[in-house]
């Protein structure tokens, strides 16, 4: 079988063997949950409940008028004990709805979709997706209904389901593809119908051969041509731009979106959750995450309610073999380190990794070895951009395309001098955007 891929990038030790074989375990509902009012890329939400209100599982508790936003639902029934500032896994602190579990199993469900999805009109499907609060569950958490609403002048011909899961340690998508294929393919039908694509692809790295073999026969029953595409296991194969390049040979233009080349990409777990809502009427209130790392006692893939605190999760996993020195939300290449165990699981949480070592590398001056240039999947010159950022030459960094950087971390991974290239490039991107907003320099 020919494996498709993109130029450059890096081969990583993927450490997936720790959890890839472990079936998804459902975590019991905790005593309480904390639901930050922003869990997606876009506008923050306004709460629809207030302190003291009773809520049911599946009830919408926050929404926004903005187009780029996804509503939030309660993952358990209980009482709102407050709307207060709380530790947020990526934003430091943010307003959050705190709900105490009342132990009842009261719930609100949406109306499931009829079987013949291909006859429903795309607009109502998009509304359905929005009501369910769906965002990309791969980590970027972009509202799904926005992706499914291409402008009229940009017709969509292809839909790609992203099952690459290229981050080391993470295996939640792997398990979802194996265990929830039926839901996933139903979700795929909804999304394909909603965006008007003619053909679908499911891209899966070849270190998940069992998923490829499992899905290949199932996609034949879909009402549109669908291809399971085995991809070379190479980082960052799961990046939208690189997935599109590998599967379709198209390059998304700088500053552009997949729909500029007629493509919509979504994560496999988003599809599975959407398929479940279509069948059972349950909106996005829980997700599958991977808990792994050398100091965690019980590793694995878990279905957890949104808002569950990391300390509760750690307790469910029977705590630590040795105290963790570094906790990462997401994968080790792009994940965000956590300063406290009091952070909740949010929609974009693909996992938490617990490490007993700080995972640092001694820093030397740049020796111009060119590894960063040879591996950058965006064909940038990270060494130069890093130096320009260090010297505060942000206009020059912009001229050298710093905004094209996708922050995948390939450059910093390969750097023998241990230079924090991603950190510097993020800083430069932030400064360039800030200056643009201020209008000029």
């Amino acid at each position, binding site marked *: 079988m020919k494996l498709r891929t993109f130029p450059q990038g890096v081969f990583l030790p993927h450490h997936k063997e720790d959890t890839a074989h472990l079936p998804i375990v459902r975590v019991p509902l905790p005593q309480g949950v904390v639901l930050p009012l922003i869990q997606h890329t876009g506008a923050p939400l306004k709460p629809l409940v207030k302190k003291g209100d009773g809520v049911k599982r599946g009830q919408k508790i926050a929404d926004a008028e903005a187009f780029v936003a996804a509503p939030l639902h309660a993952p358990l029934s209980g009482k709102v004990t407050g709307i207060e500032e709380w530790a947020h896994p990526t934003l430091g602190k943010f307003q959050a709805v705190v709900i105490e579990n009342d132990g009842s199993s009261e719930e609100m469900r949406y109306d499931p979709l009829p079987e013949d999805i291909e006859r429903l009109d795309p607009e109502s499907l998009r509304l359905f997706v929005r009501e369910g609060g769906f965002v990309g569950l791969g980590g970027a958490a972009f509202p799904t209904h926005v992706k499914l609403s291409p402008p009229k002048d940009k017709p969509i011909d292809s839909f790609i389901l992203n099952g690459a899961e290229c981050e080391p340690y993470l295996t939640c998508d792997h398990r979802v593809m194996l265990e929830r294929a039926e839901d996933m393919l139903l979700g795929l039908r909804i999304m394909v119908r909603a965006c008007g694509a003619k053909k679908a692809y499911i891209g899966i790295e070849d270190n998940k051969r069992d998923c490829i073999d499992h899905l290949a026969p199932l996609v034949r029953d879909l009402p549109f041509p669908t291809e399971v595409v085995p991809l070379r296991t190479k980082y960052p194969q799961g990046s939208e731009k690189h997935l599109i390049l590998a599967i379709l040979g198209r390059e998304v233009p700088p500053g*552009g979106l997949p729909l500029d080349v007629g493509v919509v990409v979504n994560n496999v777990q988003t599809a599975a959750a959407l398929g479940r809502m279509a069948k059972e009427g349950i909106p996005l209130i829980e997700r599958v995450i991977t808990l792994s790392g050398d100091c965690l006692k019980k590793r694995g893939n878990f279905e957890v309610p949104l808002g569950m605190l990391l300390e509760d999760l750690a307790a469910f996993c029977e705590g630590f073999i040795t105290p963790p020195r570094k906790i*990462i939300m997401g994968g080790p290449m792009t994940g965000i380190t956590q300063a406290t165990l009091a952070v909740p699981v949010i929609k974009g949480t693909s996992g938490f990794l617990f490490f007993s070592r700080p995972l640092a590398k001694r820093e030397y001056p740049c020796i*111009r070895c060119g590894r960063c240039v040879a591996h950058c999947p965006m064909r940038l010159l990270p060494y130069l951009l890093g130096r320009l950022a260090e010297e505060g030459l942000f206009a020059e960094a912009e001229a050298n395309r710093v905004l094209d950087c996708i922050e995948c971390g390939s450059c910093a991974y*390969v750097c023998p*001098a241990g230079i924090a290239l991603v950190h510097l490039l993020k800083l430069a991107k932030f400064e360039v955007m800030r200056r643009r907003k201020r209008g000029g320099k």
Partner: protein
Amino acid sequence: MEERLVVSSPPHMKSAVTVPWIMQQVVFALLPAAIWGVVFFGVRWALLPLVLSVLACVGFEALDCILFRRPLTIGDWSAVVTGMLLGLSLPPGCPFWIPIVGGGVAILLGKQMFGGIGQNVFNPALVGRAVLLVSWPKIMATWYVRPPFALGVTSYATPVDVVTSATPLGIVKAYGYTSVWETPNLLFRLFVGLVPGCIGEISALLLLLGFAYLLFRGIVQWDIPLFYALGLVAVAVVARQNPLFHLFAGGAIMGACFMATDYTTSPMTPKGRLIFAFGAGALTGIIRWLGGYPEGVTFGILTMNALVPLLDRILPQRFGVKKV
């Protein structure tokens, strides 16, 4: 427990490749050629300059760091590499002070003056060698030892001293291109290393073996040596001389595989690297053919080193922008 959590920027995974490890691999890669040089010329004539050169480079770097109150950088092994490269490009049996002066110039003038590792414009070993070449041309062109497998045309060499012998490129410069072909099996003997030359440059085979090791380890790319060779071959063809002779004689392989590929002084952009390497190879050939020195590797590469900042401005093809 929570106050002990480390908060840092991603990625939280780093490759095992570090600067000292890379430098150590380069030293390993040079060992076969170095050992053959010592066997060929003898311990006293070849090992001494080599050891002195390495010691001088490391010593001068340590001295510079202490003198200017900078953190000691000799632990990164780059001074050892410079010392090896310089020592291997010296004539066997040269006076003891030659490697010391060369090492001092290489490290102080060629590297530390620019700000140390990664900052220099010119290859330090070649800076050292260039200064030695122009300051003591006679010493640098005299081979004081008669190796066990002498070149067939030694009778053409400087007649004054019985222990001197000549290098093939020296013979070409002094007696014309055709005279060198009086040696039987010249190309084969050049390739395996049975012809006098600089200490570590005599065996193209062993140098290529070392280079293959670096390729295998992912430390170097193949593009620079290939285009260096193409540049040299192109000039040889124009000069109507045997391209293989030019590749195997003198320091061409050493220059292509270990000098031109120096990280700091070669370009980072894919296209720039090709232009740099082809130019260095072509200049090597032109200097050998038309220049005053028998060998052109040193000045060929140094000249192209000067162009690197310019070549680094050639950006790679932007992602998402198709060629028109």
